[in-house]
């Protein structure tokens, strides 16, 4: 009797092994690429799998294997294509550790994009924290061309690359979670990360700033060919445009739900316009967004942004630190430039996109008691495009780093 009972016990315990799968038997997909094909409903999926032996102590040093394996197969959705891929990949493809989904620009601009990306949210394997990258070229080319030199392990590469780029504000935080919220909320624009490995007409830095680029335009010598810069603008689940790194930073500054650490930028020196003054921009507080909704007349949106700058370099050697009049001029220059650029971006969004990339619809919601009336008021079509928007930047602090004065040129060269 006792023996039978014991046997029965083991029977139950063993049933827990049904889902047992060893680490050895799994291939961890780090990046998924999605390309459309000529057939509607069929897509090309590219899976970049990490080789866990590379860069770990378990690799025993001498391993000659590459850090990743990249395969491309056709299929109708992200998960079922992994099984097709198993006809030539030796292990089970697991999507639990996927860091990015790369979508080619062509696919992102198609009407059917929402159908293929939706399948990502149904499976529990793909996390909501996965970042969405839009690549200028085919996604499979992007993943294949992307050859990081130092961070060869792909998960570390994407993690560090994106974290840093998002911190500096040149690309937005573009998780699937945010994509679905904004798309399903049917208001606002979603910004995806824009990246490429192809060079296009390169702008030189003399044209103005360090962030007025989109990916592919940055003159670069050496390093990995992949550039992350700017964002892909999505309206209603479909890509409609690309904005530059500078505009992405402004969107960060204006959107309280996005996080940005601060960035370095330059303005033309107000005293000697041949040179530029570099400064570090940071926002200690969230922007204050105050929306007054009016049913019959245009809604007014007042945005106040308090920011701080720390001057990093003054190549013109003008004495901004001690001379009050000069300093005022510099302050004014910074603020006007920010306000001008913001105004241009807002105008573009109102006229061209007819929606906002700042997630401001959140702030108008409190004027409605229920969702039907909110949806009837229509943020996309009626409220935002006609709104009167005032953005004021207030300079809260102006620091000059650890130097009080620069060298005096006339004294140095006397």
């Amino acid at each position: 009797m006792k023996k039978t009972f014991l046997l029965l016990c083991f029977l139950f315990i063993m049933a827990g092994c049904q889902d047992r799968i060893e680490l050895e038997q799994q291939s961890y997909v780090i990046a998924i690429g999605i390309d459309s094909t000529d057939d509607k409903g069929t897509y090309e999926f590219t899976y970049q799998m990490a080789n866990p032996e590379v860069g770990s102590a378990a690799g025993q040093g001498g391993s000659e294997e590459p850090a990743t394996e990249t395969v491309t197969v056709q299929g109708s959705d992200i998960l079922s294509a992994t099984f097709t891929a198993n006809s030539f990949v030796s292990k089970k493809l697991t999507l639990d550790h996927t860091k990015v989904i790369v979508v080619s620009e062509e696919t992102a601009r198609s009407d059917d994009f929402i159908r293929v990306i939706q399948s990502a949210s149904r499976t529990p394997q793909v996390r909501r924290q996965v970042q969405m990258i839009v690549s200028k070229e085919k996604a499979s080319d992007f993943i294949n061309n992307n050859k990081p030199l130092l961070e060869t392990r792909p998960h570390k590469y994407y993690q560090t690359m994106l974290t840093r780029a998002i911190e500096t504000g040149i690309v937005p935080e573009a998780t699937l979670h945010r994509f679905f919220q904004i798309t399903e909320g049917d208001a606002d624009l979603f910004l995806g990360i824009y990246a490429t490995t192809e060079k296009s007409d390169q702008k030189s830095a003399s044209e103005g700033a360090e962030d007025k680029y989109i990916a592919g335009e940055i003159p670069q010598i050496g390093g990995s060919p992949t550039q992350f810069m700017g964002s892909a603008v999505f309206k209603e689940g479909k890509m409609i445009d690309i904005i530059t790194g500078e505009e992405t930073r402004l969107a960060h500054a204006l959107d309280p739900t996005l996080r940005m650490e601060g960035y370095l930028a330059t303005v033309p020196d107000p005293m000697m316009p041949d040179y530029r003054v570099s400064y570090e921009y940071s926002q200690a507080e969230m922007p204050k967004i105050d929306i007054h909704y009016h049913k019959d007349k245009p809604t007014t949106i007042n945005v106040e942004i308090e920011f701080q700058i720390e001057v990093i370099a003054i190549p013109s050697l003008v004495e901004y630190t001690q001379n009050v009049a000069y300093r005022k001029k510099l302050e004014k220059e910074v603020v006007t430039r920010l306000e001008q650029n913001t105004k241009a971006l807002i105008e573009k969004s109102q006229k061209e996109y007819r929606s906002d990339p700042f997630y401001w619809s959140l702030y108008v919601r409190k004027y409605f008691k229920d969702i039907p009336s909110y949806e009837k008021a229509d943020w996309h079509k009626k409220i935002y495009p006609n709104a009167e928007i005032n953005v004021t930047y207030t300079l809260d602090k102006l620091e000059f780093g650890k130097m009080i004065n620069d060298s005096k040129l006339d004294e140095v060269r006397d």
Partner: protein
Amino acid sequence: MQNKGFLRVREIAAMILLLVGVKLSDSTPALLTQKAQNGFWLIPVISFICIFPSFLLMLYLLKKYKDKNLVHLLEAILGKGAGKAVSFIIFLFAFLSMTLDSRNYIEQIKLLYFPESPTNIIFLIFMVVVFLGAKKGFEVIGYSSWIGLPLIKASAFTIIFLVLGDLVLQRIFPIFGSGLPIILKEGVVKASMFAELFYILIAYLATRETAKFNKGSIIAALIAFFEILIFYFIYITVFDYNSVAKIAFPFHDITQFISFGEFFTNIETLFMVFWLFAAFLKFIIFLYITTWIFGVIFEIKDFEPLLLPFGFLVGTIGLLPFNSVINELHFRETLLTIMSPFFIVLPVLLWVIALLKGGLRKK
């Protein structure tokens, strides 16, 4: 029965907290959002306001009639035959709720953690564990609930803490979701989401002094209510109104979403352990009190041998629904809708009858 009356306020409170509070992690939010959209987090408020007075009335009646549990009370007020009939209805409600709920939990375990294993096997193992737990008797269940509670709550608070950064408070607007009338109606119709409070009344005599039971159950009901409210609030502020309606298991979507900083991602298994622990305890309690109600109705003194057949029945009936969506959105919704008026009105009726019969004057 291994009940010696050693349970205190804290064990009773812990059991009720687990029985009712764990609801925040199943598919009930998905059920509520279908109609109420982002106003769904207000539904528990309405439901609680509707059902809590009835529950207090029940406690009052039990106190007046002294030394009676739920079924005996019904028999004393309504007469033997009618009392047994009504009790049997309560038993059926409890049994069906347990069956449909358990299927829901099985689906969660299967979909998220054991995708390859067949549902039957998971169900079987789950019910075997529940049966073995329930067999230990009511007091052991009470102690285990009390011991397990801090761990379970600590993990829940860790989740709240980690998700705080992703809350966007403006998402609760428009405040009434799809409209105030709908929220009010749904609040009343779904009031039975707190129906477990009534089932546990079968254990009214489990404590040495009934005042302890009163105190424990009232405290636990309030805490469970606030817990559910907090979590529903988190769901709506993390997911937006259109997204939350699409998510079947928001609790697990949140555990998958959060991470300890950059480095420790994919940490959901950590929370799964405590969640599973809570789920086991919930169904252990549920199975025990359901069988208890049955035992008292049919005057079976030693009802514990019935736990096995009942556990088996829950498993087999629970497997019948075709899939979890039908189970949740169709069967469970219908059941809740039928149960709500019953539990809101029954105590009032009992009170009126008791008043007319003069049962309240006696003491």
